[in-house]
């Protein structure tokens, strides 16, 4: 029975990788100043920080690990500690109750490091902009290298964003 179950996970479920000529990927890559690949090679350790999201973004970030997107084939993986991370993937409009936790996570991440603001809230606060309880986007608290738009960004969009950060502008 377990053999049968393992079979179901084999290709062709896996989506093909977006090429360098993918317009969405190229557009994202053109916004990246310094490609991660030139500093770190073909592997990135990612630490996710929820800074006040509605948890929609987290659902799609989780989906990156499923058999369709299979994040780890690109050398991308999520790590449990900021000390092990190259990239902080920040979601949410940065609730003021999370601001210190976010800056401390950033400070705990060793150089060189990159920050991705993932989703419309992390970009600029989105529908929560103007609230007394938020800072309004990740860039208002820590330096951001790349913004991935969407509410929430689909796994395909997240993947393109992460690959764009690796490759940078060509």
């Amino acid at each position, binding site marked *: 029975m377990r053999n049968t179950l393992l079979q179901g996970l084999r290709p062709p479920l896996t989506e093909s990788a977006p090429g360098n000529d993918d317009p969405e990927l190229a557009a994202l890559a053109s916004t990246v100043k310094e490609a991660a690949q030139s500093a770190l090679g073909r592997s990135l350790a990612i630490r996710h920080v929820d800074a006040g*999201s509605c*948890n929609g973004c987290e659902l799609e970030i989780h*989906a990156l690990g499923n058999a369709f997107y299979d994040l780890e084939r690109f050398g991308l993986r999520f790590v449990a500690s900021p000390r092990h991370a190259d990239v902080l993937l920040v979601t949410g409009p940065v609730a003021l109750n*999370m601001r210190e936790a976010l800056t401390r996570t950033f400070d705990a991440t060793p150089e060189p490091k990159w920050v991705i603001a993932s989703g419309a809230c992390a970009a600029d606060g989105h529908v929560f902009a103007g609230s007394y*309880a938020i800072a309004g986007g990740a860039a208002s608290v820590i330096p951001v290298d790349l913004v991935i738009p969407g509410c929430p960004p689909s796994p395909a969009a997240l993947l393109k964003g992460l690959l764009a950060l690796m490759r940078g502008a060509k």
Partner: protein
Amino acid sequence: MSANPHHSPASETEWREASRRLAAGEATLVSLWGDEGRMRMALSEPVCSLSLVEVGCGDNAFPSVAAAHAPAVRLERAACDLFGFTARDAPDERRWLDHGRWPLRQPLGHEVPHDGAPDPYPFLEAKGSGLHQIPVGPVHAGIIEPGHFRFHAGGEAVVRLEERLGYVHKGVDRLMRGASLERACVLAARVSGDSTVAYAVAFARAVEGALGIDAPARAHGLRGLMAELERIANHFGDIGAICNDASFALMHAHCGILRERTLRAAKAAFGHRLMMDAVVPGGVAVDLAPDGAEAIRALVREARATFPGLVQLYDNTASLQDRTVGTGVLKADLARRFGAGGVVGRASGRDFDARRDCPYPPYDALRFKAPTRREGDVNARIWVRIDEVGESLDLIEAMIARLPGGPVLAGLPSSGGACEGFALVEAFRGDVFAHVRLADDGSVARCHLRDASWFQWPLLEAAIEGNIVADFPLCNKSFNCSYSGCDL
């Protein structure tokens, strides 16, 4: 359940009587929230008949409900933070949502400027020889929402867990105030992203109740379809994730495929993987795509073909059962007292499902079971989810087969004067309560949305007691409470 509520005049006697009935188990607390100059409460009697009670807060104080009824504690603390009220004789006077980090206090009451310096937060103590504390969070190791867990442990065993939440508070209640219905619905859809459909339906039904209108029949059918797709997507995800927390990754991988297929069917049918902003007051904003019905039918066929094998795998893997059976037991009596909704309640014998017990369309015309278990452990919570997936697949087929034709959106009256309405809707996690008060100009004067997690989080503290610290992720995932849904 979205008709204009029975309205009780502000009276302290009636308020105290309601608290007494809650404490005596004669009624269940549905929600407790602040409004302009008053506190309000929704209770349900043994069979779901909802009533509202309120009490004026003339001197900014009101008699504490939590003093007699523990499930009210956090809702009461939250209301006091937002409105600046004082609950007289409250058992816990610590702030809940307000960590002292905002530029102001009492954002919905009489605002007071604040310097944003964090307040100290004394955790409850556990005393005994050899006890130690383990602080966890707010930033956790996985891809999950932030919150702080303070464990007191004796060796490996948890003696006390205390949760501290509020980290993702975004000020939804105040953003709602004065918002147009369109904007308010967008906000409601982002209270807890995993339940975006359920929240939008709850909000829309409360508004429709206030305005005295009804959505077209086809809209009800489509709302039901979306709600059931949301339910199975989350249940697939949770069943896999719970097993993954017991280091059984194979189940996680397969359930991840079913979840992804569900989201893709949702995208094909309604244009968005999570179906955000698809439900609006008056009906739905998107009709079923031409090939949407077939995409959903294909999903049901695939789930019927593969899911039973996964259930068998779960049932026949002794090493996995060893982790889930007897772990994190929630006693039936506690589940009843706290009015625990959803899977958490039904796995501990609380036979309540808003779809069946406070019926609303399209469920009022459909037959389905609300599966329950009595054991209250992680295993029972997995089985309730498994059984609910089966019921939902049947419901989805029936809904597609019976989907009425016609329009999907009814026009809203321009302004019906000040009015209010409420609704109780079954999300995948449990019942979502929505209360909406509209102003003369048709904008939102006050919108209160209560997630099922308000009553489930405290029960997790009880369920983990005596378990080993290493089983906490397993227990936590089997509850799968929303952080954002309570922090608002």
